């Protein structure tokens, strides 16, 4: 169990009040393994561990701290530099676009997010712009019906951009409009193009990249593509209720120049939480 081995090394450290090179390397090795197992990008793990090691060896252990606390503090700061920010969600009129890879949890998160805004007192609706996946309309319309969320979609229409245009007209009276889109990846040029066209019509205030917590080394390349295509304002990490640690989130945040807005922790409508950096970081490093 990786978490335990890191704790053991830390406990060895606790009895020292200065760091020697050998102890630092041992600790760094354990940190590296924890991060790699948490799916953090390999190059990023190497860069982070290099920073942590340099700082651990050169910085003075503060009065009253022991070596263990010294390194923990450094690790926490290095992570906070990347993940410390939470996407600001204003409670005002806005258009939101949900994008991401196939199966990442966009549709489910769309309904969850709509409920979030509804509970904050905003008139919220959902627009189904996934005109590709069999049953996409049924999935989202049923989900919205069950949870009393106003819904717009066009079952027969294969043109996602049209559906969005019509939806914006039909749902004018709603303050928050959340648009669900079909899954797509970096190599699907026609779908990336469709996403750009939806973006141009919707002019969203928020473009959320919905990412599965279990995503592996693909996170960097995919996040970059979505960012280059339309610009991403926030990341939603889903399925954190399993065993995946969501290390890909670090790449997503760096590549998109944004931050994490929410996390998905289950299939139910309330299983959406505002991102908490401390809790996320502590689970990541075990």
């Amino acid at each position: 169990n990786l978490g335990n081995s890191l704790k053991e090394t830390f406990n060895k450290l606790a009895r020292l009040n200065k760091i020697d090179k050998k102890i630092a390397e041992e600790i760094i090795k354990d940190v590296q393994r924890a991060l790699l197992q948490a799916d953090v990008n390999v190059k990023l793990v190497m860069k982070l561990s290099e920073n942590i090691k340099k700082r651990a060896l050169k910085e003075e252990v503060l009065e009253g701290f022991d070596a263990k606390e010294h390194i923990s503090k450094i690790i926490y700061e290095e992570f906070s530099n990347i993940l410390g920010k939470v996407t600001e969600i204003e409670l005002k009129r806005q258009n939101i676009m949900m994008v991401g890879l196939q199966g990442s949890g966009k549709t489910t998160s769309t309904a969850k997010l709509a409920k979030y805004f509804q509970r904050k007192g905003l008139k919220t609706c959902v627009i189904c712009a996934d005109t590709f996946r069999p049953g996409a309309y049924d999935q989202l319309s049923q989900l919205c019906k069950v949870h009393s969320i106003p819904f717009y979609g066009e079952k027969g229409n294969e043109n996602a951009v049209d559906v969005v245009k019509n939806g914006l007209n039909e749902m004018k009276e709603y303050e928050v409009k959340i648009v669900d889109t079909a899954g797509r990846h970096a190599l699907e040029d026609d779908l990336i193009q469709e996403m750009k066209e939806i973006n141009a019509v919707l002019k969203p205030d928020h473009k959320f990249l919905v990412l599965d917590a279990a995503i592996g080394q693909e996170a960097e390349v995919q996040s970059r593509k979505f960012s280059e295509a339309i610009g991403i304002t926030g990341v939603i990490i889903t399925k954190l209720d399993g065993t995946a640690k969501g290390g890909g989130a670090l790449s997503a945040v760096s590549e998109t120049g944004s931050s994490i807005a929410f996390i998905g922790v289950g299939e139910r409508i309330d299983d959406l939480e505002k991102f908490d950096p401390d809790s996320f970081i502590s689970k990541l490093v075990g």
Partner: protein
Amino acid sequence: SILNEKDLEEPLWNLELALMEGNVALLVVEAIVSSVKSNLIGRKKKLLAHTDEIVEDVLYESIKNVIKNDGLSFDEIIEKSDKPVVILFVGVNGTGKTTTIAKVAKRLKDKGYSVVLASGDTYRTGALEQLEIHGERLGLKVIKHQYGSDPSAVIYDAIEHAKARGIDVVLADTAGRMHTNSNLMRELQKIKRINSPDLTIFVDEAIAGNDALERAKLFDEAIGLDGTILTKLDTDAKGGTAISISYITGKPIFFFGTGQSYDDLIIFQEDWLLNKIFG
């Protein structure tokens, strides 16, 4: 000269990094590299042979052993099994189970088998409609009950239907579920106990990282897996997940999913994957 631990340190470390960048799970990388190391230490280094190349050759063989299928292929199993062959598809949420069932259905239909689909996801909104649309497009019957009904009963009905009509294959869909949800894993055990599928296929995605190892392990422990179909390889995924899952289950990878259309299903071939990894 003899290869010693010091000679191997750098080439092995580079290999570890390469494998991890190739999306192989950390624990599997460590297990493979440690077996490569013990294979190599003490070996005679041929004159002029570069340590890097020797290490890579041994690694190639090591990975080949992890992913090779010594058993029957999927097509052979279908051919040899008593009909109706019942195939259960399982996995965590969103990996591509329902879409994969449609692809497998098309493949079987093209080979001349009769197929019926069982809508065993009675939980998620739109799940019934999704499989029904695939059924319509493929001209195949879908056995379904209402949302909220017992998935074991739906699948049972589909098998009875197949027996009564002399249908060759039953493809049973199930709801996605987290391997950590004991109630849902118990539900899956019940489905398997009541319906005794001939094949239990784990559907996971090539874009998953280390978690694929954990979930393959837990699904295998909970209900036993006969093989895997790995989806979403077209996202330019490196294929390392295939090694992780093969390693932990010891079962074959039957197919790769390479897109969202019915023809996007390719038979797993070791050489193809080895070329992808070793360039």
